[in-house]
Each structure stands twice: as C-alpha cells, then as structure tokens.
C-alpha cells in the first residue's frame, strides 16, 4: 500500500524498502514525507497520534543518510541528536532503534545518555561520539556548558525533538530552545525535526522550535501530519451508588472500577495526585479477591521501585497500574487496552494524551472510562467527553522565555567558551521564546550573572564571569564553572524527605521512597498513613529522613487533600459552564446529577453562560457568600484573598474562606447582602490590592526560591547530601527574599518571581479574563438556606489549611493557648 504522492522507491534506498517489505510493512505517507523534507533540506514538524510510527518517521532520514556515508578512517562527528523529555523514553528509543539498525546491517551507533548513564560511558561519548545520541534537555544543557562544545556539535546534521507538546510551554522548554540556538550556531547546517502529539495550534510549536534568524521563523518549518487514527471511545462510569456531593477519591465507585479491571487485559488507572493514587491502590487491593497483579506508580516512589513496575508492565505481567502524571508520557506498552481516569480529567488535551496510552494501533480506537468523584466532576467529565469527541483541545498559550533560565544559559555559555556580548544576544534572539528579548533585559541578565546585579555594585570583585582584554566574557575560574555544571536544569522540585524503615533502635534503614515536606507536617508521630501501597506508622522525622514502621492492618489516617494539583483548563471550564446553563443538554447526565441541577434551578438559580452566580445565605452563626467562577483552585484562591481584603476594607468583617476548582465561599458574622457586588468584583482589584497581597504571600517566596535556584543565585541541595549538624549553614531563601525586597525591589530575580507567581501559582491572567467577562453580569441570589450547588464547597470547610501571614500568626497563637491550658491543668 503506497499511500504517498511520491513513490516510495524514489525516496527509500533499496535496503530500506526491502526491510519494510521483509517486515510485512509498507512505509506510511508521513514517514516518506519526512524523508522528502530531509532531502529538500527543510525543517519539519510532524504531528501524529501515538502508534503511527512517529519515532521511526523522525529517524528515517538520519538512518538513510548515515547508511550512505562513505567509509572513513578518522573518528566521526555526532550526526543526529535526539531530545526526549523523559530519560526512560530516550533509553526505550535506543532499544527500538537497535532493531532496524541491526536488521538492515546499517553499522550505525545509537546511544542514550541520561543522568543514569555510567560515568565511563559518558566520558567515552564525549571523546568518541556515537552517530546518534539520545538524551534529555538537561543533559544537552550540560553538554553545551562543557569546554569544547563547539567542536562536539560542529558536524551535527540533525536534531530531533520528541514530544514537544509536553515541553514547549515550560521553563524546560525555554532552556531547550536556548540550547537549540546554541548548537545551531556551532552547526550552521543543522536541520530541526519536531515530533508532537495532536495539538490545538501547530503554529505555537513551530514558533518555539524555529530558528528566528533573518529569513527564518515559522515559515522555515514544514508541517507534516500523520493519519488521524480512530476516534477514542470514552465512557463514563455511572455508578450504581449515587455520585457523592463532594470529595475527590471516587471511593463510591471502587467496586465497579475493580470489576472493569477484571474484564480488561491491562488497564492504566490515572489519578491526579499521589495521595489519590495511594488511596485508590489501597481500595483496589482491599477488593482484590482474585489477587490480580495491580501495581502503583507515582513520583514519590523510589526510582528502582518505579523501574520494577515499568519492567513488569513491559513484560505484560500486570493487569493494572494506578498512576499519576508520571505515566502520562513514556514508552509504549502494547498490551494496555483500557485507560481509566479516576476523578476529574481537568483538561481535554491531557486526557487525549492519557487515552493515547491505551492501544498503540492506529486503526483501532483507544478505550477509556471516566470515573467522576463528585457531581461537579460529573459535569466536567461529560464536557471532556464531548470535547474529545469533537477533537477540540485546550491550547497552551505561547510563552515568553523566563529570565532566570536565560541567566543559567548565559553562565553555561561562558563555561564552554568566551563569548561576545552582541553575538550572544543575536544568537539568543533566534530562539523562539526569546525572539522578543530586548537588549536592556539581556544586559541586566548578564550583569546578574556577573555580579549578582545589585544596585550597590559591591560585588564587582567577586564576578562570576569577567570581560577580558579581548572584549570577550569568560568564566572567572574552573571552580565556578564546575559549580555551574552541578546546578544545570530548569526543574525545581519541592523539598523531599526520604521515607525509611526505622530499626528497633530508631535508626534509619531501607529507603522506600520520597515524600514532600508539606505532607509530613500533617502527621503526628504514632499516626498511620498509606505510602507506597502499604500502611506505615510514623516514628519520627530526623534531618532529611522520615522514619516509619510497618503497620499492616491499621486503619490509616488519610491526610486531607484538596483535589487536583492541575487547574481545570480554561477551555474545559467554558464547556462545563455551557453544559450547565443549557438545560436541554441535561438529559445526557445521570438522573441524580440532573435532579441536583433541577433543585438548584428551583431553589436558587442557574445563571446564563457568561454570568457569575453569587449566593448569600446564613448557616449556623455564619453569613455566607458563595460564587461559582469555575476557574480552578489557583485563580479562586487568589480571588478569595483579594475579596477578603476588600470586604475587610468595606467593614464587612470576613472571617474565612474556602475554595475548590469550581467555587469559593467567604463567610462573616454579619450578613453580606448589603455589599455592592459590582464594586467588590471590580477589575481594579488586580492593581494595588494584588501587589500588596502578593509581596507578602508565600507563593511569591516559593516562586523566588525556584528562580533563585534556576538562575544560580543559590545552589541545589542534592538528595543524600549530608546536612551539617550542630549548626545550620544553609539559609532560607525567604530571608534573602525579604532583604532583597526591602533594599532592591526592582532586582531581576524579584521580577522573575513576580512573573512566575502571576502565571503559575496564582493564575492572574485567568482571573483578569474572568473579571472582565462578568462585569455587569453578576447574578445575586439572596437565599433563605444553602443551595444545592453550595453543598460541595461547604463540605470542604475545615479540610483546608489557611496559608499566609494571618494563618501563621493563628498557628502561633493556638500553640501558645495550648501552653496556657497546660499551665492551668
């Protein structure tokens, strides 16, 4: 079946054509198109669903070129560089490439290089590069920061960027785009090849990967589309038990989920948080009378444990894996025939990605099952199903490159060879995310790298990079370069503690995984919790170790969790609103959810699509204000903080608030009906109020810490690195943040932190759009009693911690009261 415009024979050398034939395959149109683009010397972006032979399409041109090289006696240069967002994927592609290379006898060397690659192999790869190197963005940044990077990459012909859709709109994507610009300088003939899953707008990806030099840009990249593949079949689990009002665990449906697993060959059970994963795993095993091999996979488990699960999966030994986003991407498992999404999908694109993990054959549809955990999620699942059926995806907005990442890159450039300021600027502005970078910002970044960028200039004598007499900038000394190389990368993870089994004497023993600091704080010694699929009793916390003992059979305390760490995507939120307001559409919903919507209509109201419903009512001794923006927890938390500030100023005396992905509730002692809601929700709250709150907020501090690490202001703490005991020598970035804010509020890193916090942590842009949308469209429903919609959010009261300044003071006061109570006993 030659389904291409150009006959395969003209494009494929006979060795390749024969190989396809011998396997009983024929080359697909998009594979041939990629060969054609390569022969024309064009950059190409291939968009295809999983299972379409996408990876082979990317490598085919390189394999052909390498197979046609004349023999050589001298060591050869690196020919093709492949970048994957995942280590495991790079290793898997190495294995998959091995087959055609061996079967055709191409004599091509393809090797992976990741953080796990042994030191001797890595050294050999530097001296004697393979033909094809398969690696990650972080390793590329490291290679670019080595002396001799220019020589290493100068003969490079092709770079293949895999799974771009997961990378481009992140700091990792910024870093990769910069390194891409760098190696393009070293290798002027470099051809760029992008591979991506289906995306909403390919132009955004093109802009990210293109070379934006004169005459370059999006037009320099040709788009190749793979076959569409069969539309997935997505069902929703309509539980026999009624859908609960609130919660995120889907506990009510576990028996049915288990029954579905027993009927599938292999199922991937996706959840949104690690604790949901632990919970679901625990529940499934409680029901697992057939002792089906069901495994667990999430980011907190020890790496070797995760590898074991992956290996067992690859051998086809597992019936189900409960997993988080750690398995959103990754190597192909042919046997997966069902994807189950427990609790809300949050976004259509993520769901398409996850569903794509089932069935890697294009002509058969993937099967997926949504299991909503509460009533709002039922609406969300329905909206997601409809979006997927229409093939409508939520788009990532184009991104402007972060300056902390640029600082790291500038330092890396200096570590590899002396640079000229103007030439480096010209190079950096060929990278997609930095094509609009202004010279002043670039200068500020270089100044930051050099002296820290402080107004005082008192650090001139400690410069990290210095300008030589030849006008070039170079790293001050080898130690500084070495330190930089240890801190390369744009991933900053939260402080993790090792979970270890405690010996009888309380000494730390075998490590079972890692857990975020914040999770441990919720537990008291003696309490039990679920981790890595087992029940443990917390013995204590010492330095960086959490000591535990097995407590099989104990009834574990489940730390409260606030649902998903992902926000509902803007696009899906809009669809949920549409679904809700269009009463003729309700018939697709299960009866108990429909009854709930009808009760809401009768007792309160269902607003028009673009309106914001706002209810006020009394309950207990409190007066509530509840509204339903559907903009996700982050935006709601920010909104609630700002609303309470305003209510305070209006004299309404707010006492507290609670948020989830759909709604937020604020309460006070006296009624809130008299408030001017138009004024309360006026857009100007994103001005001074936001700035004042933000400066004090813990989110800014968290963002600052990230920026400080990425930019090289402070160094990473590596797991296993001993903390000095006796006295703390590390310092808290909070202290640095406070000092810098007082003495140099316009410092580069504060600017970075501000931008990160506004986009990532508090979702200011989304909040702004929402406030603009609802202007003059607030529908106030003063009620006698609480409404059906308000039940889920009111159920969350008491489960939530109140972070920030006021919260901290309350904690200290409460502890003090305990001491007084103790004194009076």
């Amino acid at each position, binding site marked *: 079946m030659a389904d291409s415009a150009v006959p395969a024979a003209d494009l494929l050398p006979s060795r390749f054509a024969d190989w396809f034939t011998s396997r009983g395959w024929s080359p697909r149109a998009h594979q041939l198109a990629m060969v054609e683009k390569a022969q024309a010397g064009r950059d190409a972006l291939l968009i295809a669903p999983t299972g379409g032979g996408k990876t082979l399409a990317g490598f085919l041109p390189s394999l052909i070129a390498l197979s046609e090289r004349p023999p050589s006696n001298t060591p050869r240069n690196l020919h093709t560089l492949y970048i994957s967002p995942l280590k495991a994927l790079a290793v898997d592609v190495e294995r998959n490439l091995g087959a055609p290379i061996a079967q055709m006898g191409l004599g091509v060397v393809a090797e992976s290089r990741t953080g796990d690659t042994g030191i001797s192999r890595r050294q050999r790869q530097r001296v004697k590069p393979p033909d094809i190197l398969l690696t990650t963005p972080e390793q590329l940044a490291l290679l670019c920061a080595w002396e001799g990077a220019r020589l290493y990459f100068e003969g490079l012909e092709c770079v293949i960027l895999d799974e771009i859709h997961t990378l481009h709109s992140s700091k990792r994507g910024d870093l990769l785009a910069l390194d891409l610009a760098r190696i393009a300088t070293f290798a002027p003939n470099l051809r760029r090849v992008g591979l991506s899953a289906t995306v909403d707008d390919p132009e955004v990806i093109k802009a990210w990967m293109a070379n934006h030099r004169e005459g370059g840009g999006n037009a320099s990249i040709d788009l190749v589309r793979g076959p569409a593949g069969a539309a997935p079949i997505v069902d929703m689990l309509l539980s026999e038990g009624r859908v609960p009002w609130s919660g995120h665990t889907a506990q009510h449906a576990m028996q049915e989920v288990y029954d579905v697993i027993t009927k599938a060959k292999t199922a991937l059970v996706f959840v949104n948080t690690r604790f949901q994963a632990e919970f679901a795993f625990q529940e499934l095993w409680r029901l697992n009378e057939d002792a089906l091999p069901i495994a667990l996979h999430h980011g907190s488990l020890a790496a070797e444990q995760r590898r074991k699960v992956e290996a067992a999966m690859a051998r086809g030994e597992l019936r189900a894996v409960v997993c988080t986003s750690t398995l959103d991407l990754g190597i192909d498992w042919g046997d997966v025939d069902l994807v189950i999404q427990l609790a809300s999908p949050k976004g259509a694109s993520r769901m398409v990605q996850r569903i794509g993990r089932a069935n890697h054959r294009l002509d058969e549809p993937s099967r997926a099952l949504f299991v909503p955990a509460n009533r709002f999620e039922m609406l969300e699942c329905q909206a997601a199903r409809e979006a997927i059926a229409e093939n409508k995806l939520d788009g990532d907005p184009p991104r402007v490159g972060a300056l902390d990442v640029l600082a790291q890159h500038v330092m890396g450039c200096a570590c590899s060879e002396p640079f000229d300021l103007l030439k480096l600027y010209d190079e950096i502005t060929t990278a997609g995310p930095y094509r609009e970078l202004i010279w002043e910002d670039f200068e500020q970044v270089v100044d930051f790298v050099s002296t*820290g960028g402080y107004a005082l200039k008192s650090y001139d004598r400690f410069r990290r990079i210095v300008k030589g007499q030849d006008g070039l900038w170079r790293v001050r000394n080898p130690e500084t370069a070495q330190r930089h190389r240890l801190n390369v990368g744009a991933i900053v993870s939260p402080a993790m503690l090792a979970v270890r089994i405690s010996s009888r004497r309380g000494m730390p023993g075998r490590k079972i995984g890692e857990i975020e600091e914040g999770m441990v704080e919720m537990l008291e010694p003696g309490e039990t919790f679920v981790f890595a699929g087992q029940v443990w009793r917390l013995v204590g916390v010492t330095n960086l170790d959490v000591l535990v003992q097995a407590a099989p059979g104990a009834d574990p305390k489940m730390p409260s969790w606030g649902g998903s760490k992902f926000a509902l995507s803007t696009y899906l939120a809009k669809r949920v609103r549409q679904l809700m307001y269009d009463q003729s559409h309700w018939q697709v919903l299960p009866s108990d959810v429909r009854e709930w919507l009808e009760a809401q209509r009768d007792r309160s109201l269902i607003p028009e699509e673009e309106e914001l419903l706002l209810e006020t009512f009394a309950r207990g001794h409190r007066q509530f204000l509840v509204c339903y923006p559907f903009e996700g927890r982050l935006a709601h938390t920010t909104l609630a903080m700002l609303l309470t500030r305003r209510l305070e100023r209006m004299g309404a005396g707010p006492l507290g608030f609670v948020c989830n992905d759909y709604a937020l509730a604020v309460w006070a002692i006296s009624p809130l009906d008299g408030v001017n809601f138009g004024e309360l929700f006026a857009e100007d709250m994103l001005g001074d109020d936001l700035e004042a709150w933000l400066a004090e907020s813990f989110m800014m501090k968290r963002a600052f810490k990230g920026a400080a690490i990425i930019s090289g202001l402070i160094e990473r703490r590596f797991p296993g690195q001993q903390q000095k005991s006796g006295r703390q020598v590390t310092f808290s970035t909070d202290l640095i943040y406070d000092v810098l804010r*007082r003495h140099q509020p316009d410092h580069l890193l504060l600017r970075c932190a501000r931008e990160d916090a506004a986009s990532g942590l508090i979702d200011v842009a989304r909040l702004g759009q929402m406030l603009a949308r609802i202007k003059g469209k607030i529908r106030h429903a003063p009620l006698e009693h609480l409404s059906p919609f308000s039940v889920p959010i009111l159920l969350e009261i008491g489960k939530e911690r109140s972070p920030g300044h006021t919260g901290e*003071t309350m904690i200290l006061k409460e502890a003090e009261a305990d001491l007084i109570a103790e004194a009076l006993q």
Partner: protein
Amino acid sequence: MSVAYAYDHAPSPCGSLRLRLGMAEAMLRRSGALWLEAERALVVADLHLEKGSSYAARGQMLPPYDTRETLKRLAAEIDALNPATVILLGDTFHDRSSEERLPADDAERLRDLARGRTLVWVVGNHDADGPRALPGQTADELSLLGLTLRHEPQAGFQPGEVAGHLHPAARVRATRGSVRRRCFITDGERIILPAFGAYAGGLNVMDKAFAGLFARGPIIGALGSSRVHAVGWRSLAGD
C-alpha cells in the same frame, strides 16, 4: 504543678516576653535580642555580618544588603531602649576577613551605634580575634547580674548561662498546620538566643545539638510578627 507554670513568664505590651532567668529579670525581645533592664544591657547573638559577601567570594551572589539590614534592626532596638551597654554575643562577623569587606557606610553605622555607650564583643568561633578597627572591648565571656554571657553554650548544667551559637529555630505545630520561626530556648536556668543576623539560618531545637543542655523540658519563645510567643515542647515538631 505543670512544667509551664514554673517558668514564671508573662507577655509585655511591647510584644516581648518577660522571664525570670536565675535571679535576673530578662525581656525576650521580638527582634531576637535579650534586654536586661537592671543593667540597661542589650544582648544580641550571631549577627554574621558580611555573610552575603562571604558567599559571593565563593561564587554565590547572595544580595549584599544583609549587613545593612542587620544593623538597621540593631539600631531600631538601640533607639527603643537606649542601652548603656550593647553586648554582641559572638559570631558578629561571618568570617575573619568580614571586617575588611565591611562597606564604609556600614562601618560608620556600627560606630554610630557604639557612640555614648559601651560596646562589648564577646568573641565566637567565626570571629575569634574580635574587631580590628571598630570600637568596643573584646571579651571571651562576661558576668552580669549573676548571669554568664558567652558565645557557645557549655555542656552540662550551666545555671545562669546566656549563649548563642546554635541559631535555635522551632517548628510550631497546631491543628491548622505548622510554622517555622527563630526562637529563644530556655528552661529558666539558662537561655540560648536566636541568631540576630539577617541571613543567619536556624537549627531546629529538636536537633541533637540541643540535647543535654536543659535540665527539664524547655519552653521556646518563638519570634512572631507582632510578639514573642511562649510555646511548650509538646507543640513543636522536627523539620
């Protein structure tokens, strides 16, 4: 009688915690300073001046404003209390060449603070020689109101000892969550002061470095945003 009751402590209107320490009366200031009113003596520990520049010299460009920030806070305490004596309880400088790196205007600020009062530099492990050009007297330790003021706490039972060095900090836990703060730690017999320096980190009081220093369960005075909060051992957590 419960432990907490025995400490005889009370809040004061300025947010300090008033405490009997041996036979002396002490005020635990919200800034982390100790005020001995009977002698009009202000005690601060572990200023670690020029810690920022010390890291910068090694290639980590921390902001250089820490000295200014620390001295500003010290000046605010001196303005509020007008002490006759200011006692710097060791590790005033972060390293031996800190004094040379001290910017001229910060050195001038320090001289201003010493004007019209006695400045005592109790020396610590980071600044064992005391100041070279700056005013003040140097001492290994100091006796005042029956208290012994020294940099590093000595092992065993040391009634009346006032020390720094360990940079105590506590993670205080309540039902709503936990919060980490610098703190004083005392059993009513001896006291360890929090670090006063802007960049000085904190060591959790649960660390073994504190073990064996206190005869009975100590209480801590956590530095809050408006006052010092007395907190019992049972409300604390490790990091």
